[in-house]
């Protein structure tokens, strides 16, 4: 932890995925990047976490029990038009570009993914926010 305490959590990231191992992977990666990371196992829990602390960026899996990714996103967009959302999807064909445009999705990443790809996308998105 070389950074100053106020720099430690430069951005807050919310990762919502029903796969606990993936959540913990995101936590490892982005905490290493000195962001703070909150995780949730499904859409409902994700909305709960969102309510507790508004994130700068949301990594959202599409296929989840209780509440899927699309529904979660629609709910978030009702209250927050600006938060950056990156979608994780198992196969790209099922998710249309039109929907992505409508819901203002920053980018979508197919599983399985390369960590570097995720890191780049997230950092790029956060950088654009900084501007």
């Amino acid at each position: 932890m070389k950074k100053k305490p106020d720099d430690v959590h430069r951005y807050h990231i919310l990762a919502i995925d029903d796969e606990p191992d993936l959540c913990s992977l995101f936590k490892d990666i982005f905490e290493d990047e000195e962001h703070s990371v909150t995780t949730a196992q499904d859409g409902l829990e994700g909305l709960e976490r969102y309510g507790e602390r508004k994130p700068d960026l949301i990594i959202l899996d599409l296929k989840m029990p209780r509440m899927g990714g699309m529904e979660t996103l629609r709910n978030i967009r009702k209250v927050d038009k600006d938060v950056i959302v990156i979608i994780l999807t198992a196969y790209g064909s099922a998710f249309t570009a039109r929907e992505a445009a409508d819901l203002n999705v920053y980018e979508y990443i197919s599983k399985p993914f390369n960590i570097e790809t995720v890191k780049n996308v997230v950092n790029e998105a956060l950088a654009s926010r900084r501007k």
Partner: protein
Amino acid sequence: MKIANKIRFSFLIVGLIPAGAAVSIYVVARNNLSESIRNNLSTAISARTDHVETYLKMLETSVGQLSKSTVLENLLKIGDKKNPRRNEAFDQAMKELKRTKEANPAIAEFLLMYKNGTVAASSNESSVGSNRSTDALFLGARKGNCIKDVYYSEIFKEPLLAVSAPLVDSRTGEFAGVLAARVKLAELNSIVAGKTGMGRTGEFYLVNRYGYMITPSRFGEDAVLKQRVDTENTRRALLHKGREQVVSHERIGDFPDYRGVRVLGAHEYLPRMQWTMLAEIEAKEAFAPLAELRLMFLMVVFMTLLLAMALGRGITGAIVGPLHSLQKGTEVIGGGNLDYRVGTDAGDEVGQLSRAFDQMTQRLKKTTASIDSLNKEISARTRAENVLRIKDAAITSSISGIVITDLDGNLNYVNDSFLRLWGYDDAREVIGKSVFMFWDDPAPAQVAAEAIRQSGRWSGELNGKKKDGSIITVQLAGNIIVDSDSHAVGMMASSFDITARKRAEEALEEAQHSFKIIFDSVNDGILIADLETRKFYTANNAICKMLGYSLEEIRNLGVMDIHPNEDLPWILETFERQAKGDLTISSDMPVKRKDNSIFYVAVNANLLTTYNKRYVIGVFRDITERKEMEKRLMTAERLAAVGAFVAGASHELNNPLACVIGFSQLALDNLRRGKPGHEELKGILEKVMSNADRCRAIVGSLLASGRGYSVQLAPVNVHEVIDEAIELAGRQASFERIELKKDYSPDVPLVFANRVALSKVFVNVALNACQAMEGRGTLKVTTEREGNGGRVIFKDSGVGIKKENLHKVFEPFFSTKEVGEGVGLGLSVCAGIIKSHCGDITVQSDGEGRGTTVTIMIPIEKKGGHEKKTG
């Protein structure tokens, strides 16, 4: 009363007159005879009684005379002192007595007694010296003559009678002694018991005052003084004792005698001796003449009546016989048989009557016959008149228009229908006019009239012109009218408006034509088959083309000829059900063309009934193409299912694969930076390992399900398969927050199934339930025995299914899930699997938000009817 009875009765009456006379004669004769018998008896007894009295008097007299004998007086005067005088006197007396006794054989003994009762002398020397002073013959005689009643003498050993008289001293007149004579009863007996005039059973006898017989009985030995007689006769005798003037018939009676035998008896009382004289004769003998008389009388009466009846009968027969035949004859003839003859040949009045009767019948018959023929003629005429009247009425009321004209065609008569037909109101409008004015074109009408005149008749259709000018089509039939000499005198015609019928016929023809065009232009094949014979009645073009037969060929075929033989049993069964109206549509029916190639049709059947014949109309739609489509769709569906399955599987793999890749990169990254410690690296690698393991497990299960239908059917425990399936499902979705309730029935049998396929179905249903509950809720799995198999019910508490979507759940590609959430197999494939097990799968939902129930039925064995050929 019948005549015969009257005659018989009269004869009976006549016969009764001599019978009545005989009766009165009999009564008189009987009374006289009876009287004479009684008189005889009465006379006889009086005579004998007198005789007895006379006899007794004679005895008295004899003894009295002897007592006057001086010899005896001397002896008594001397007394019994012993002296020679006495001896002499004694000798003399003894001599006297003995001599007298000798002279009279009826005397048993003479006794001469002193006044003290000592026997002075006797005809019997042994009696001398004995004392008789207490003897009745001594005591009774002291004051006069006396007769001692009959007694039994011990000395003589026989019954005797004693007569005694006193001896008086001739000088002093003093009582000197008694002379007694013992008398034998022989004489008395001969007087009393003489049988003269008494027949075989008559007897006379005497009874003493003590009621004992003193003369012998005719019927018993040794009756004297021993036979007691206490009979009606003796009692009456005692009753009449002393009554001198008793009427003679009172002394005669009819009563039992001492023997108990019924007798006719009379009595007479002898007061001096207190005897009773009885005369008795057995009634049978006494009244024998009476009995004879009665017999004779009865015979006379009987014979008389018999004769009367026989005569009556004979005469009745002679008179009544012919009468009977006559009576019978009248009855027969009265009944209508005039041919009957009484025909008696009796010569009497009845015979004459019957012959006269027969003649009368003959004449009556002739008369009747002529009346009959008259009646027949009358009724024939009446009938003829009736026929004419009816014909007249028929013409008048006929719905055909009838017209009668002269030979030139001028109207003489028209009926109401004719007027109506041509639109006239009154016959006067048309009578006398020419028949040719009623036609649109008179020319053909004239041709018709000429034909009638020439050949006698014509019929055909003509266009008539009505009063108002409108045209009608008329069916006309005309005839020539001839008189009785066969000369033509006129014409007649009947006409009928067939305009409407013509139009209807045209319309029908048109309709038939249109129908035929429609029938033949329909693309579906139509076959009409007789229900009974199953032969085809007709067919349209389309079916001819489908089958490759001409219409004529089809009409010679039947239901049996246009289907493959192996399918005939169920097709005929289907036909029967169609015939009953149970079934209207049947699909997938194989049909054989003329060239024996097979195609498939869906048949829509209906019943048609005409003129009591019943037909089945089958509308055949060739579904070969549709079946090809379905086949192609099935292939496409399978491909799509495989695609979806692969997609789902890859999705399942992507998560753990992402983890593997991610953590591996993280580890490499850390190593590159030389940053993490040993422990940290170990944790990352463990995660890599565990996710790699998950990948392997998923691939394993994919391989298992990928084996698919290659696995043979085998007995399967449904419960094991369900458990396995839920575990498999648990790997694909999270069941952690789902409460699983199992209610397995031990009765569920092993079912013959493909274990892997069945497992796929359960996995699918379980996953669907899990999704419907969004990972949270209750899933209840129930099993139960269902007839010949098992039933599995999955009931979840999830969102349920909208009603409008319920019927679509088995359609391929149907999903309400988010795009991209498809999980391998669809319910349509589940249904396919279950159907291939001859089972059933149904989905129910009470609506959105109320959960879903999936019910799966699996039979123990694949069973079922025909294997239909499905593409």
